[in-house]
């Protein structure tokens, strides 16, 4: 019964090819000698040389990484503690709070950008890493919270009771049983958060300060002003890193 028709295979293949076409073209054109993306003038590594000598890009990359790490740390603390707290008996405001906490992944990003810009200037927070970390965490917390909560909901309570029964204290139970159980959830939540923070343009534009330029913002401005082959080279580098990360996480998940 469970077989796939030829037409279905062709359809899957075609969509996948179209899905990859822009990516492949980006990679191909990153080796183009010509400054114009429309003409192919032969193979060259010029754009990569230019990229690796571009101090601005390096700085932006570093900023992006710092920001993503800060966001991951803040979101991890908030999301995991919330998931742990709200697994048992609920308090009156729990549904209200977790409902609002999940809102940032449901509403268009532009609204969040606007909202954060307004409130941060009202609160007189210095625009830069602080504001960006908070803003990015707003859409990373719900992911970590929801993923870890889902994992905890699937967890058999008697596992923890068994640990207590065998002589583990509350902390030892958490360390030996609960944490290992939710670790895959935490890992995928962090990976997702890192990627989303790294890629975010919309919210970053509104919450960035004068001194903090992230890679995503940099790419966005460059793309708006007209594409340069340097962007193709940068895109290729990011792509390679992404593929590596996915590959490694797939590998580790199997073990």
């Amino acid at each position, binding site marked *: *019964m*469970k*077989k*796939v028709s030829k037409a*279905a*295979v062709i*359809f*899957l293949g075609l*969509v996948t090819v179209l*899905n990859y*076409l*822009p*990516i*492949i*073209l*980006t990679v191909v*054109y990153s080796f183009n000698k010509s400054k114009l*993306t*429309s003409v192919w003038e032969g193979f060259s590594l010029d754009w990569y040389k230019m990229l690796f000598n571009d101090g601005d890009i390096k700085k932006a990359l570093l900023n992006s990484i710092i920001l993503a790490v800060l966001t991951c740390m803040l979101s991890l603390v*908030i999301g995991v*503690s*919330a998931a742990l*707290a*709200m697994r048992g008996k609920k*308090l009156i405001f729990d549904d209200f*709070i977790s409902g*609002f*906490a999940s809102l*940032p992944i449901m*509403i*268009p990003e*532009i*609204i969040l950008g*606007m*909202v954060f*810009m*307004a*409130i941060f200037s*009202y609160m007189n927070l210095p625009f830069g890493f602080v504001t960006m970390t*908070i803003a990015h965490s707003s859409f990373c*917390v719900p992911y970590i919270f929801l993923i870890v909560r*889902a994992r905890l909901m699937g967890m058999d309570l008697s596992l923890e009771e068994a640990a207590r029964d065998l002589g583990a204290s*509350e902390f030892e139970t958490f360390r030996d049983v609960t944490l290992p159980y939710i670790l895959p959830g935490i890992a995928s939540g962090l990976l997702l958060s890192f990627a989303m923070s*790294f*890629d975010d*343009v*919309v919210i970053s*534009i*509104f919450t960035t300060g004068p001194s903090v330029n992230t890679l*995503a913002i940099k*790419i*966005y401005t460059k*793309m*708006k002003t007209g*594409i340069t082959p340097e*962007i193709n080279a940068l*895109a290729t580098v*990011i*792509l390679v890193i992404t593929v590596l990360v*996915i590959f490694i996480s797939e590998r580790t998940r199997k073990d």
Partner: protein
Amino acid sequence: MKNKKLNKYLLRIPIYIFTILFVILPLAYMVIISFLTKAKTWGFDFTFTLENYKKVFDPFYLNIFLESVKLALASTVLVTLIGYPFGYFMGRLSERWKRRMMMLLMIPFWTSGLIRLNGWIIIFRSNGVLDKLLMFLGITKTPLKLLYTYPAVLVGMVYFLLPFMILSVYSSVEKMDWSLIEASRDLGASRFESFLTITLRLTMPGLLSGVVLTFVPSMGLFYISDILGGNKIVLIGSVIVEQLTKLRNIPFAAALSVILMLLTIVFLRLYKKVSGTGELEGLF
């Protein structure tokens, strides 16, 4: 176990503080600003006005809202037409191919959206890859100059949002018990009837959440229309950005955001009602 209870309260503190301070408060603040008057230079005065909302209903902006909704709808329909069969067929592949397909999907999905859009610029730009191909095949004589047009924006939207639909449909196809289809065929349903009465019904949660995950972001994805549409395709997201960054009319931007937010909430409510749950399938 008294300290367990204490722990439970302590663990709640971060999310309570964060949510109140950085989600609820900002949203409330936005609603308040939307009723205030723009100051002459920068910011706003604390004088109550409905002017901003009146302005939203100005035919010019109303039209932009309409255009945005239309584009979002068009993207959603296209994404559904491609994404549903894709997710469905994917669910029927062998375990091995499922894993491979998943990997193939995840690579672009995890790659920055901007970088993926970059490829479409190469394709669409005047005398770019598409124009060259079409002229080579003799389908067109002159370059189509598709970059900075409506179709380019639509393609960009569909391309950007397709994985969300595929993943949510796939996850509900995965959960489906295939013997139910065998049962329905056994009871006399044709292939098509069986699809309509069993498969479609059982994968509806995935389809619906795919629709939400497509429609909601597409209302605000201003940078796709920005990059692939130039300044020719003006969507509500772009107007908010413009009001904020160029015209410095924060109250009006707030009012536009409130309306957009209301639209989103109505849509989410609708989804909740139709699907019976608030959870989005395939997200986790």
